[in-house]
């Protein structure tokens, strides 16, 4: 019996070691073979994934552009990105309004394993079970940093996508977790500042019907206040507007740009990045 117990106790230690070595090696191969010299890393959810044309942005800035934006990316994915990104990196961060008000179980939560990020969640309204289920989703390393994205094709009219009722239910009332989620985002932004990263914030546009829902909602005040909270973390913080060319349809659906919109935004954003060296929030309209 003693022999059995000894082996049962020692077995997981060996397993953890073997697993750790394998995880770190594979994760390094997938996500850490990118140099941050002359590079820009983007973080965001589907709005940023569909809203930024990596090629166009790279063309203007003459830098390599990587995207870590994923559909449904949420606060855990942001904190994981923050933990993962090298010091002194240049970043474009898009903490969308939808990623703030999305229920935590609907977040993507699959961008890799960060014990720092898990620990932050546990201290902020996430139960042990919540944290453990996120841990389980990330026990296999995944490619988190993409060199190319697949944008929505152009169409003369907007696609239906998620119905307006979906957004109406989101914007009905202020979710009770909003403060905690925003606090977590602020922790992430602060860590990026500590890592001496150059950050540009980006707010992607909503189609006018969704915008109208947002304008009517009490949540609008909360998300605007959140921008102010972010601004207070920086010595200088500017806001600027990027006006998109609307002669053609630029939306794929209520919350995502199509290829034309993404290209237009990326070219204009790139030009701004070349001119403006301060921390700025660009609001695309």
């Amino acid at each position: 019996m003693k022999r059995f117990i000894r082996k049962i106790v020692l077995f997981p230690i060996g397993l953890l070691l073997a697993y750790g070595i394998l995880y770190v090696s594979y994760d390094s191969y997938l996500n850490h073979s990118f140099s941050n010299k002359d590079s820009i890393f983007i973080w965001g959810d589907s709005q940023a994934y569909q809203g930024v044309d990596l090629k166009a942005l790279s063309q203007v800035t003459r830098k390599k552009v990587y995207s870590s934006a994923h559909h449904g990316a949420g606060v855990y994915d942001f904190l994981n990105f923050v933990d993962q990104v090298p010091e002194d990196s240049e970043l474009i961060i898009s903490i969308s309004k939808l990623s703030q008000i999305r229920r935590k179980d609907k977040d993507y939560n699959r961008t890799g394993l960060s014990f720092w990020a898990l620990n932050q969640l546990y201290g902020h309204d996430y139960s042990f079970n919540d944290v453990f289920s996120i841990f389980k989703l990330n026990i296999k390393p995944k490619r988190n940093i993409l060199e190319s994205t697949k944008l929505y094709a152009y169409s003369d009219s907007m696609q239906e996508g998620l119905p307006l009722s979906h957004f109406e239910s989101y914007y009905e009332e202020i979710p009770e977790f909003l403060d905690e989620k925003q606090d977590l985002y602020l922790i992430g932004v602060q860590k990026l500042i500590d890592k001496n990263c150059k950050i540009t914030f980006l707010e992607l546009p909503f189609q006018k019907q969704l915008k109208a829902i947002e304008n009517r909602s009490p949540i609008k005040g909360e998300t605007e206040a959140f921008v102010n909270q972010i601004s207070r973390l920086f010595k200088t913080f500017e806001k600027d507007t990027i006006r998109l060319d609307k002669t053609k349809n630029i939306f794929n659906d209520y919350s995502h740009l199509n290829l034309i919109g993404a290209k237009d935004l990326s070219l204009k954003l790139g030009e701004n990045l070349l001119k403006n060296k301060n921390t700025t929030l660009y609001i695309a309209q």
Partner: protein
Amino acid sequence: MLFNSIDFAIFLPIVFILYWFVTNKSLKLQNLLIVLASYVFYGWWDWRFLSLIVFSTLVDYSVGRKLKVEENKRNRKILLWVSILVNLGFLGFFKYYNFFLDNFVTAFSFFGTEIKASSLNIILPVGISFYTFQTLSYTIDVYKKKLEPTKDIIAFSAFVSFFPQLVAGPIERATNLLPQFYKKRTFDYSKAVDGMRQILWGLFKKVVIADNCAEFANQIFNNSSEMNGSTLVLGAIFFTFQIYGDFSGYSDIAIGTSRLFGFNLMQNFAFPYFSRDIAEFWRRWHISLSTWFRDYLYIPLGGSRGGTLMKVKNTFIIFIVSGFWHGANWTFIVWGALNAIYFLPLLLTNNNRRNLEVVSQGNILPSAKEFLMMFVTFVLTIFAWIFFRAENIGHAFDYISGILSNSLFEFPNFSGLHAAISTIVLMGIFVLVEWSGREHQYAIENLGLKWKRPLRYAMYYLIIILIFWFGGKEQQFIYFQF
């Protein structure tokens, strides 16, 4: 409590420690611990249904005690029927009530008589088909005087509710399992290690093979009208692997867990997909149920001793009842009947016991003839599984006609195809490991035993990492619904 859950990962070590370190001085205490642990294990789903197990235990225990002293044949028969009616009564009510009601209403309306009857919202207690059959085997064996009825109600309760096999088998015979509760169990290192290895392999089958295949099988079966023929074939293959990985994986975990506590359960699956004919398949698939039906239904009906008509009748009865045991749906009945049709030619030509030994014993590869026989049997099995998986008979026929269309020769096409490739690779590796271990109780029983320790541990670690990295979305064990 699911075997592949965190709850069970906590529950098992606690029970193990209490069993071997706290209650090990007394056999009665160990048995009592098993009863309590089993009730907790079962009550984790729905504690209300514990009463069914307790009631069934008390009825069969009392019937057993009465049968011990009762010599009058008629009274003995009455006692037997009390047990059968109570057990099958529960099973019938919870599992088949709505099915019979709906079919009676449909049948009467067919003849122009409208009957107003509303079906009940009945929840099927998990594992009822398994423990019902297990307790019935006790009463029948006591009735036939093959088994001495027990005086020990704790041992009997432990036999009925033994948690590793309570909800999905193997359906143990009282003659095999009950006596093990009377004997003092001593910890056996090699038995425990073997149990752990079998648990590991069972988890691999369930989490990596079955759960991954389930995602694609569900996607294809649920949208079968939109799929081309080759995709439908792929869907049926995915389900074929899903059901095997799911159910035999559960059995492996159950048998392995039992070994940790010093018990030996019967082998439930013996590499059925390497069978050379359907008769061999049924000797290797869900062995505990097939032998149950053989001993308590087929042989009492006369088995294959009578004339041709009797053989045909008994074969159909046993296969259809076996199908119906799986669920209250015509699809299961057709699945059973189809297997009877497969089986009959072998029986009538006296070829049903042709392939008793393991295929290609001692060889690395099968002969061309063996390969062809296995292939044909496998295809027949896949075809039958379509009925088993389909929502209803119409769905099954639509699925089959979809396969038999011109699109059979197109390339498979469904949204998860790219993701399915890694699952297909894993299925290939799985088949190779199963083939290499087909002469044993489970595929990795002997694998790596003679290797140096670091290499053997590397194999264990690799299996665990595959479980973590390639495990599919957690799915309920299919056989829980039965």
